[in-house]
């Protein structure tokens, strides 16, 4: 198999198959639709996590503003859904029928120009990737060309997240304000609120997630990915070797933004609304935490991290409504202190050697005493 020999090494293949098995077979069969929808919600953060692995784990660019791109993707989708839900007959009690309800409450009598393209589904799909992509490009070009990096870049992304929230909250006639865009019903005429729709949306999302995983893996394995790692370790040497460091950084940042935006758009579909509370500083940092817990060097780790942390969040808060935040905080501290490489670090340091030994001993038994060296036939 090509995949086995080149695209994934053996341990990555195990991770890939295990994750596919879990998401495609085990979870849909064992969970009811309510829990499955929750899993779908958790997985939307995995998109952000994959982006962060590329840009932070490999490229060394810590962005504390991924919520902005998550939000932009989500808002693009929400605008389309909202326009569809605000048909003239649905909104006839308003003073101006045919515009979203919150615009009517804010005395708008006409659809703002930037809402108009979102009547079209294909344009919406393009906008979901293009708007955050272009925005990330502008930020990236402005920062990286001036060689702003490291902590300063993190602070600036955080400021952008704060500005974005204030903008959305302040312009409530155009954005729905702090309530966000709510009461979304149909996607291209298809009711997304039914259990059946949730089931299908879950599979669409998982397929998209694997597409993103493969895309990220592809980027990682090309020369581009190696340059990213080189940049993280010794930026100046890469620059002196004649590479344009800024362009590679911009690329990584844009790719992470687009992944996050896809997650955001899926989030809107799964949860049924979008609000500024996903755009600000706190959610952005939370997304970094998911990645840190999962392991910032591992694409699969990011997925596991988002799944497990959110699962812990839900189950802790269901069992201990008043104390759960402390429990979650303790969990983060414990993970970061004890396992700086996150869950994937635990896997590589403690579980992987056992499996290797097991596989090695099995292979050596039936054979005639030829021990197979660990990972030797990978190429």
């Amino acid at each position, binding site marked *: 198999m090509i995949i086995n020999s080149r695209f994934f090494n053996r341990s990555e293949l195990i991770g890939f198959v295990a994750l596919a098995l879990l998401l495609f077979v085990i979870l849909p069969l064992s969970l009811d639709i*309510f829990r499955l*929808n*929750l899993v779908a*919600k958790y997985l939307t953060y995995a998109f952000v996590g994959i982006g962060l692995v590329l840009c932070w784990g490999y490229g060394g660019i810590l962005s504390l503003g991924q919520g902005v791109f998550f939000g932009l993707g989500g808002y693009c989708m929400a605008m389309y859904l909202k326009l569809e839900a605000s048909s003239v007959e649905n909104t006839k*009690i308003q*003073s101006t029928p045919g515009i979203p*309800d*919150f615009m009517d*409450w*804010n*005395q708008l009598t006409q659809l703002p120009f930037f809402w108009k393209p979102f009547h079209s589904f294909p344009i919406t799909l393009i906008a979901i990737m293009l708007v955050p992509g272009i925005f990330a490009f502008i930020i990236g070009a402005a920062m990286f060309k001036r060689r702003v990096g490291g902590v300063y870049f993190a602070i600036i992304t955080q400021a952008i997240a704060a500005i974005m929230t*204030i903008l959305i*909250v*302040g312009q*409530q006639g155009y954005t729905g*304000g*702090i*309530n*966000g865009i*709510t*009461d*979304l019903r149909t996607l291209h005429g298809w009711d997304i*609120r039914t259990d059946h729709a949730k089931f299908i949306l879950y599979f669409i999302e998982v397929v998209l997630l694997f597409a993103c995983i493969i895309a990220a893996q592809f980027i990682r394995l090309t020369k581009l990915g190696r340059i990213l790692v080189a940049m993280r370790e010794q930026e100046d040497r890469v620059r002196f070797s004649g590479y344009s460091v800024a362009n590679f950084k911009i690329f990584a940042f844009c790719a992470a933004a687009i992944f996050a935006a896809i997650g955001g758009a899926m989030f809107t579909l799964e*949860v*049924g*609304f979008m*609000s500024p*509370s*996903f755009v600000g500083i706190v959610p952005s940092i939370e997304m970094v935490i998911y990645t840190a817990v999962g392991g910032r060097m591992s694409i699969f780790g990011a997925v596991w991290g988002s799944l497990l942390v959110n699962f812990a969040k*839900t189950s802790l*808060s*269901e069992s201990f*409504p*008043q104390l*759960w*935040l402390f429990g979650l905080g303790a969990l983060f501290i414990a993970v970061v202190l004890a396992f700086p490489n996150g869950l994937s670090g635990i896997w590589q340091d403690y579980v992987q050697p056992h499996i290797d030994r097991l596989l090695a001993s099995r292979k050596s038994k039936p054979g005639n005493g030829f021990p197979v060296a660990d990972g030797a036939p990978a190429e």
Partner: protein
Amino acid sequence: MSDEKKPGLKSPLRRKLLMGMAALPAISMLPRASFAEAPATSAVNTTGLAVTDSEVTVGILHSVTGTMAISETGSVEAEKLAIEQINAAGGVLGRKIKFIQEDGASDWPTFAEKAKKLLVNDKCAAVMGCWTSASRKAVLPVFEQYNGMLYYPTFYEGLEQSKNVIYTGQEATQQIIAGLDWVNKTKGAKTFYLLGSDYIWPRTSNKIARKHIEGHLQGAKVVGEEYFPLGHTQFNSVINKIKLTKPDVIYAIIVGGSNVAFYKQLKAAGIDLSKQTLLTISVTEDEIDGIGGENIAGAYACMKYFQSLDNPNNKAFVSAFKKMWGEKTVIGDVTQAAYLGPWLWKLTVEKAGSFDIDKVAAASPGVEFKGAPEGYVRIHENHHLWSKTRVGRAKADGQYELIYETADLVEPDPFPKGYQ
């Protein structure tokens, strides 16, 4: 001696009579279950809610963590008190109320997730919850989709009406119009400066206030209108503008922690609230706890309930609340409205003779609750409450002194004509 005997002869009889009369109301309070068997579960629950022969499950969904916890805790406490009292009086249709509490964590999507859990997983027969408009907007589609019943306690901006929600707080016109009329009449106020936090409730409320001031009050006008982001703490520039324009009334709808900074800076700037009229619809006894009574003494608030209301229902409620949650607790408008939720639900279920959501929703209009701490309330066809509007004046001890109340109950009007 003989003088003492005469009343002595009378007194046993009178005492017995009095005792007998005193016992009369107690009869009506006896749990219904002691007279008749509780109706069969299959008859009162045809849609698979969490109702057994002895128990019925309801949900409590508020933020007990995060920025909203400070406001929502009072509502949780009031709802738990009401549930305990209902259980002590025999429950609902002979069934004890069991509650499942979930934390919305001041986070709107979490509210939606937990609402779904309470309805889909736990099959709650009713949910008492939400505080901010944003959280209500987030859960509303969930309640409509899975056909649940939400009792929502907060005064809010209106513009909403749902079969699946009972709004136990006031909608905007109930809170605003009577208060403006009062300040116009008694203080002769002509100029108003409108302030608010920047989100839907203050903006809609100020919109209604402006329409009323400009359209219905003779010769009155708005001299300024400004909004601040949630959590804003620098009010110096607006305070300077207020000093320049000298409005008759400062109309303030600032919410949450911003209040502390606003009233302290107002005082520091030398604006004396005993001379400058300030009318707010966003500061309850709970907020004064944080602001400090001495910083806001003299301000007027327009609410439907104050802890200091002098009626037997309220006295019993306040003492029961303090007994359960401690002497230091204060009770604000929303806390009282939250207390109404479980009671209104119980009364509605008993009127409908069923826990089924559709029947409860249909039976809701016309349900009366005479034991409400705020006095008599009744549910309107639009699922809001008929209730009185009251104006109170803040005192340095953190309580409000009742100054004015409307003679009649004010009709809820979530979609006010001419105010949109």
